[in-house]
């Protein structure tokens, strides 16, 4: 809508009178009748009989009020100046999107798919760092994999320190699956959060998210994976979180930005084909 479309809501009517439904006592008579009809059950039959008569009389009177034609009264219109003043100060506008009547920031952001791609790339970086930790500190690439599988796999929980460094196919498959799903979900969440931090995806993915995630894991790891909680090396763990985030952030930065859809009405964003659905977005050229 352009400013020309903003019709005054209250305008001089040019009417002398307005027709309104005529006042009537029949509804209260009928209501009282129905109440007495019920009250007779706890008082006396005569009360019910009186109530019944009153209810029927009320109903008949009511019908005669509306049939064959509804009774109206003409109320004189008191013309009033529709004064609408406002105390708001005028402010200068930033020319961020001259083509839009009102811009919602950010105008552009990364698509959610960028977050998913970033999440998958981060998963690889994290896995590499975790395996490196296994080789350097424990002399086995399987050590961190067996620890991760213990999150959901009871057999892994039962592994002894001696067998933790060995290869176990079931633990390996479950750890891969767990790592992939978690990375995908974190990537999805990352993608959804990107519009909040449209300018600094690396800051979000590489610093803010790893710090928050590590803090969360630090608090709940004892519940979700007691074995990993006992064996974890927090320095390497946090480093792998940063690796995930930085790589994910770098991948996101390389993706093409898309125009945010917040300026579109909800029905269009939800994919509904509705009449007048474009009404929420107005540019100065195409009101």
């Amino acid at each position, binding site marked *: *809508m352009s400013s020309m479309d903003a019709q005054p809501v209250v305008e001089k009517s040019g009417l002398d009178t307005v027709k309104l439904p005529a006042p009537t006592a029949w509804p209260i008579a009928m*209501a009282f009748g129905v109440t007495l009809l019920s009250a007779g*059950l706890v008082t006396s039959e005569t009360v019910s009989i009186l109530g019944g008569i009153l209810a029927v009389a009320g109903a008949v009177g009511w019908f005669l009020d509306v049939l064959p034609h509804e009774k109206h009264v003409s*109320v004189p219109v008191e013309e009033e100046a529709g004064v609408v003043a*406002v*105390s708001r100060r005028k402010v200068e506008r930033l020319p961020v999107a001259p083509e839009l009547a009102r811009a919602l920031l950010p105008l552009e952001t990364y698509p959610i798919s960028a977050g998913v791609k970033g999440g998958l790339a981060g998963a690889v970086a994290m896995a590499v760092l975790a395996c490196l930790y296994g080789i350097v500190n424990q002399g086995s690439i399987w050590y961190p994999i067996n620890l991760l599988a213990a999150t959901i796999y009871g057999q892994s929980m039962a592994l002894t320190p001696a067998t933790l460094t060995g290869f176990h196919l079931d633990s390996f498959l479950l750890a891969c699956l767990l790592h992939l799903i978690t990375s995908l979900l974190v990537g999805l969440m990352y993608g959804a959060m990107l519009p909040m931090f449209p300018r600094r995806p690396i800051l979000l993915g590489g610093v803010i998210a790893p710090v928050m995630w590590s803090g969360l894991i630090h608090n709940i790891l004892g519940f979700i994976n007691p074995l990993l909680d006992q064996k974890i090396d927090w320095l390497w763990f946090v480093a792998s979180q940063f690796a995930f985030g930085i790589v994910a952030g770098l991948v996101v930065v390389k993706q093409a930005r898309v125009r945010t859809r917040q300026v579109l009405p909800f029905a269009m964003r939800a994919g509904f084909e509705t009449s007048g659905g474009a009404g929420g977005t107005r540019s100065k050229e195409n009101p």
Partner: protein
Amino acid sequence: MASESIAIGRLDAPARQIGEILHDWVTTVDHKKLGLLYIMYAILFLVIGGIEATIMRIQLIVPHNNFVSPQVFNEMFTMHGTTMIFFVAMPIVFGFGNYFVPLMIGARDMAFPRLNAFSFWISAFGGLLLYFSFVGGNGLYGAGNAPDVGWFAYAPLTAKAFSLGHSTDFWTLGLLVSGIGSIGTATNLIATVLCLRCPGMTLGKMPLFAWMNLVMAGLVLLAVSPLTAAQVMLSLDRYLGAHFFDTQAGGSAVLWMHFFWIFGHPEVYVLVIPAFAFVSEIIPVFSRKPIFGYPIMVGATVSIGFLSFLVWAHHMFTVGMNSYANSFFAISTMLVGVPTGIKIFNWIATMWGGKIRFGTPMLFCIAFLLQFLIAGLTGIMLSVAPFDWQLGNSYFVVAHFHYVIVGGILFGLFGAFYYWFPKMSGRMYNDALSKWHFWLFLIGFHLTFDFMHIPGLLGMPRRIYTYEPGRGWDVWNLIVTIGVFFQGAGILIFVGNLLWSSLKGKFAGNDPWDAWTLEWSTASPPPEYNFATLPTVNSRRPLWDIKHPEDPD
């Protein structure tokens, strides 16, 4: 102040005879007058229900107290609950809906004005019938007995064998009669919102107030019907010897519970959704920002309405259901927290970065947000069936639902009173008195209902007449009762302020809050016809468009 246009003509109208004025009110079909009647009637019952609560709390202030007899105590908790739900909360939300839905959608009246009058009067007579029991109800204890079976009147206590005389029948018939009015008003609200919107007002441009009243009215239609059916069945049991709830003759006491709570739980949302509506109008205006996430707010309201019909049996965890039923109702109850949480985030997001004005309506809304959040959290706790087994029917539950009804709904209502009082009366309220009301009521509310959780956790059951000293409950009951007096003082100031300000307050003008919805475009109080010409709108904030033609929505 945004506007200085004053409806001098109506305020300076020549004095009329009292009989003429009474005739006008009794025969009126004007939605605004009927709205005011609903509200005044509800305030009267609010005071009565408050007195009943005070009597209960005085009885419990110390152990082994004999302020009232056990019989009167039973009548007080029954009448307090019944009054507050059916004759305070429901009429008051119907009153606001009646008054403001047509104004907000640019209509001249409700869809069925005569049905509107009938609905109000039959609801009012239902309340009077219930209270007539104090005089005419020949219950178990002799002549003049009010109902004493609790506000949810569980079977078999309501059976003729355990509830002699007519006191329970007064309860049944009072609610049955007033239920007819509720159904009428709900039908009217739905028809009005769907059929009488002014040109340009699509559903997507309708104020959230109207949306939420639409959802509320739908809930009333669906929820009151089972209650009405149950009341009829109970009357058949009591009068004609049917056995719906008679366990000795093949009936089921649990059947009553299902019928009652499939009404009872949606009823909570019938009451709280209008409170959401008030808050959704007040917070944007007092934050100087449009509501955050309008479509999501609508979606969340509809979701809450839907979910409210899937949770009723969480009131029955302690009755003993199978594990599947327990699991289903625990999970569905927890799910309500999702759309409700969305709403709370959206209200906070509306305030975030806004230029907040801490007027009295906004103070009540901010308190509403915090208190309703806490009420939701204790609700989540009680949704866990094993937790509920420990604390069901304790004062913890009483504290939880009073947090919802007083901390949430009543605080929202007070905000609405102060926000729309200038529109309804044409005059401003006394600001200093309104602040006194807010702070006294806030302190009283927290003294009463924060501390009421503790005796509940310590095992104090609800509805007990008195208790033994030395169980650790004494001091908490003392504090709880002291809080009631703070609340009572707040209510007295509130009622006094409304009465005084409606006669002597400063003229308010059309639009004292610099607001955006259509009711502020007409005079205060509005003329009978609302709008000389039906308005045309182009956005969700039509008055914003007029005030800011350079920056329309």
